[in-house]
């Protein structure tokens, strides 16, 4: 089985976010980057499937050279080879176009990724890739088993779970508890040095969106306690200060 795992290179979840270039770009100075946590689940499940029944795992990232440490980590965890599409991942459509282009050249049985990235959280890439390739896409997938050419999935839906059987090939947006995150071991890190990492140029740079401005949420104000017997004061404050009435 050939598995493609698409990973994002995103700011650590504890990063203090700020912007540059007139609030149009993330300020990357001093920011620690990690593999998207949901992508990490997808990668772990892909490695488990490979360990159980053979095959290959290819990691794909759309990003500039700065993302290579994140790609090497995926190789250290157990992926066999990697492809980096040498471009800034500007929006979901652009990223999906690149993934679909790579997938068309290589025919994968399974294309796994996180349910969403944790920087822009669009959650659209898996659906777009499925459409572009004309194959099913499912998200968010919490359980994934393969039996022959069929994938058995469990998906979280509003108020419950859905069990699905889908023919391969398939695109899945993954989340926990599909697998446990894997920590690369020292031998894996050493062997990742020599695993192939191919850099390819992007196809068709069609920009459908442009960022005009980022804004941080307003800082949380202090909590004011109003005694129950002063309900009128509370209403006044909701009118004059919070301006919600």
């Amino acid at each position, binding site marked *: 089985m050939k598995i493609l795992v698409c990973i994002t290179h995103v700011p*650590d*979840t*504890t990063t203090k976010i700020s912007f540059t270039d007139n609030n149009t770009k993330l300020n990357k100075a001093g920011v620690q980057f*990690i593999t998207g*946590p*949901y992508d990490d689940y997808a990668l772990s499940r892909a490695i488990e499937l490979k360990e159980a029944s053979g095959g290959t795992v290819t990691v794909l990232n759309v990003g500039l050279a700065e993302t*290579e*440490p994140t790609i*090497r*980590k995926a190789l*250290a965890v157990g992926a066999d080879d990697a492809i980096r599409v040498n471009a800034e991942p500007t929006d979901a459509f652009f990223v999906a176009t690149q993934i679909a282009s790579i997938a068309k050249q290589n025919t994968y049985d399974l294309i796994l990724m996180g*349910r969403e990235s*944790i920087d822009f959280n669009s959650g659209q890439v898996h659906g777009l890739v499925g459409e572009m390739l004309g194959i099913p896409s499912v998200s*968010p997938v919490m359980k994934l088993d393969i039996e022959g050419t069929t994938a058995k999935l469990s998906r*979280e*839906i*509003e108020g419950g779970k859905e069990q699905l059987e889908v023919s391969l090939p398939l695109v899945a947006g993954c*989340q*926990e508890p599909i697998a446990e*995150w894997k*920590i*690369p*071991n*020292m*031998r*894996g*890190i*050493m062997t990742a*040095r020599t695993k192939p990492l191919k850099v390819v140029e992007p196809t068709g740079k069609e920009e459908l969106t442009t960022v005009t401005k980022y804004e941080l949420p307003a800082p949380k104000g202090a909590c004011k306690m109003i005694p129950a017997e002063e309900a009128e004061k509370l209403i006044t404050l909701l009118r004059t200060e919070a301006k919600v009435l």
Partner: protein
Amino acid sequence: MATSTLDTSVSANKKQANDVFESPDFYQIDDLLTEEHKLIRSSIRSFVKKEISPIIEDYAQRAAFPQHLVKKFGEIGAFGPTIPAEYGGGGLDYIAYGLIMQEIERGDSGMRSTASVQGSLVMYPIYAFGSEEQRKKYLPKLASGEWLGCFGLTEPDFGSNPAGMLTTIKDAGDYYLLNGSKMWISNSPMADVAVVWAKNEDGRIRGVIVERGMEGFSTPEIHNKWSLRASCTGELVFDNVKIPKANLLPNIDGLKGPLKCLDSARYGIAWGALGAAMDCYDSARRYAMERIQFDKPIASFQLIQKKLAEMLTEITKAQLVCWRLGMLKNEGKATTTQISLAKRNNVEMALHIAREARQIHGGMGITGEYSIMRHMMNLESVITYEGTHDIHLLILGNEITGIPAFK
């Protein structure tokens, strides 16, 4: 839309949310590391947060050895990371080895001791002084954690003066006969294999590999320690143990054998102590920011700031010492005395920081809620083993003056 339970506000890994350790890097020493070094550090840090932090306090309080971690250390690659991959090692450099020791001791000095002994004192001599058969027989099983090893040099009456040892090996034709005893041996009660140093008929110190199950070989445990409580420590007792001739380390003769092993282990300790110091500092900094007295965080007070500023200064200096020493090790140029300086400086630094951090934590600092008191008690062993604090002064004194004060 269904929601994920992934809590992105606290930590990338919700299981590790309790252990929020971050290492200081005031002088941007990370710029001196490769991406691979940083990945090694973050992997071992994740391993420690997942496997050690959640359980270590309980094991230390009960004075029990978490034996299940031996296999896990093997899986992550903490045993013999500098040994070539063909023998099951990691084939990594000495900066990588140092970072691994730093991160494990950040969790607990006893756990770092287990890994240090296995890598530097058991696997290293078998690799450096052993025959090809010995390397193939022992190293892969020690690397994977299938076997645990220990190192027998110190004796009840010969600690700082190992040359006076009384343990002997005598050639008895088909085998050697080993007699004597060793004391303060980390891992001994659980060890499958022991690298033991003993004097032959000519008074020369030789190394032999002793295996559990050999007749006359026993490993009584030392109880009631107030330090390294989660590490198992014991004796090695040899009563006419028949050692096959194939178990003699062929390529080393004399005290320089065990001393070379100690060079490697002391190098790891210099980094390890840095890890313990970082943990104490990080915990103290967080506590000082959160603990309110006189209506403000205690971090607002000058005496607390003085402690934190001194801690960061000493940690930064120790980081630079470790990094430079690691580069010298990589080039094969690090000397015994350079390693002595680093071990001595960094362990004292860590112990001092543990005591200061204990004060910042107030009464909470003596409880098992925080790692501080455990680090402090552990470091009392670390400042004594692998060359006492004072002996390292004499090693440096000898280097400076050419006059040995320990003879």
